[in-house]
């Protein structure tokens, strides 16, 4: 009967799972050229964000958003040494993390946000009704809603698709394809993790003692949101890159919060019944 219903409603079987795909963004190789930002905008036909000057280094993009799915940060660090000030620039191309336990996906009330056969998180534009719940749910501030009017695909949630359309044709996502220094590496998540561990060992051997990986299964940042399918090699603490130390998954504390809410409701009902039942 279920099969007949599916045929009637034209419900397709989801594609069979494939090897998990993802990004390894090695920030030690990033030169801040923003080719990834441009390639992403071009391939995904995302509109420009205007020409605002932030005054914060060479980063005039500012944030990831509904129409900005790659964002290159320019972190200027000055530290004192014997002869005066030593300056260093940390560059990092930020992107949707495609969390194993994605807060946006769990928040979504329509089922527009799905896990694809590549293990990535994807917004189905024809399903999303723009309720906006995924926006504050994301612990990384990635996903956003386009304005309700005057916009292509107006009023729905948007974020990096990991170039789902390109993956379907065995192509590399636009950002990784355009990266001139292999800072953005695309591939099978398992293989990328091996590569990342190797690269970290290399950097530690060279004396980059603060280098670390962010988003690996063994990292404490994976405690709630799980390993990230787009993970990073960082040269400083995650906070320096505006990344939370332990990103939260709202589901983890939800039952407790419902419990308090229910306790108040039941308590009130009991008090009400007692007060009204006491006659005379």
């Amino acid at each position, binding site marked *: 009967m279920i099969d007949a219903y599916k045929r009637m409603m034209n419900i397709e079987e989801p594609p069979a799972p494939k090897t998990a795909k993802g990004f390894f963004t090695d920030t030690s190789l990033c030169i801040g050229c923003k080719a990834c930002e441009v390639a992403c905008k071009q391939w995904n036909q995302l509109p420009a964000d205007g020409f605002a000057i932030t005054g914060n280094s060479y980063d005039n993009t500012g944030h990831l958003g509904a129409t900005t799915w790659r964002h290159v940060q320019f972190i200027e660090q000055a530290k004192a040494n014997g002869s005066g000030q030593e300056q260093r620039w940390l560059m990092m191309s930020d992107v949707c993390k495609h969390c194993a336990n994605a807060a946006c996906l769990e928040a979504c009330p329509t089922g527009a946000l799905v896990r694809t056969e590549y293990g990535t998180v994807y917004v189905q534009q024809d399903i999303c009704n723009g309720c906006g719940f995924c926006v504050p749910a994301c612990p990384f501030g990635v996903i956003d809603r386009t304005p309700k009017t005057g916009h292509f695909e107006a009023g729905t949630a948007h974020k990096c698709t990991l170039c789902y359309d390109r993956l379907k044709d065995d192509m590399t996502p636009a950002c990784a394809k355009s990266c001139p220094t292999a800072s953005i590496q695309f591939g099978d998540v398992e293989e990328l993790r091996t590569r990342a561990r190797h690269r970290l060992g290399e950097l530690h051997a060279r004396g980059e003692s603060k280098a670390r990986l962010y988003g690996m299964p063994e990292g404490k940042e994976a405690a709630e949101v799980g390993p990230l399918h787009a993970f990073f090699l960082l040269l400083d603490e995650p906070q320096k890159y505006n990344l939370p130390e*332990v990103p939260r998954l709202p589901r983890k504390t939800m039952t407790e919060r419902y419990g308090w809410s229910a306790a108040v409701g039941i308590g009130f009902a009991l008090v*009400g019944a007692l007060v*009204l039942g006491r006659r005379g």
Partner: protein
Amino acid sequence: MAEGYYDYPVVKRPVWTWEVPAYFWLGGLAGGAYLTAALAQNFGSADDRRAAGGGYYVAAAALVPCAPLLIADLGRPDRFHHMLRIFKPLSPMNLGAWTLTSFTPVAFARAASHAASTGLLRGPLGALARLVPTRLAELAGVVLGLTLAGYSGVLLAATNIPLWAKSKLLGGLFMASALASGSAAVTLQAGRRAVPDATLHRLAMIESAASAGEMAILTGYLVQSKKAARPLTTGRFAMPFWLGAVGAGMLLPLLLHRVAGRRHGRALRSLTSAAAICTIGGSLALRWTIFEAGKESAEDQGASFDLARG
């Protein structure tokens, strides 16, 4: 000097507008009024039943703007029904959409059957309304109404906005606020008719219990939120929060009820009505200030890092 990347926020500012707190307020009021009316039907005296029966009208009336408000806030209002293409209680937004969709007809059916029982609704419609199984409608309505009153705070808490997510008690706080405003709305409509003083005293006592509970939970909420509560307790929302939600919405009604406890007749009616109006207004002020201050909280980089400290 910011700890993170310049002073940029870690999380995104919610895109929701005024429709959301207005809907939370009315939905909570409807749930609270329905529960109060149902309690009076099942546990109260004949006078209580007559006085509180109007609570079903209040619940139905408060529900009328709820769905339009919820729909208006969507980025694509024409796709509201996509909320109902799946059942996913894991998402409070989905649970809320289902709850509103099912509570609205129940509340209307119970209001119609009450109208039929008092002779207000006659003719074929009245005959139809008399067919409504009242006990079943009361039981289902109480469960659905409480869910509608209680899910909104949990929804806001199921985000990464520090002011909403840090404390465990936002769901409980919104529930208490909903019950206070709902019972207040029942008192208010009862006060406009000739009801015995004893009934008004009992309704006032219920309302006071909810307000006192709300105060206690609010204290716990602020203590748990620590520095994350700053956008609410200081700054531009401090006035409407402290004077509106707390002062006029909780303390003043408690005080008025204390005075009303020794009064009778018209004085009692005036005092309980004034207290009810304060409670209902305060409930809106509470939702609105916490909602709007949450948007400022989203921009608080330090509070976001604190929240995600593990």
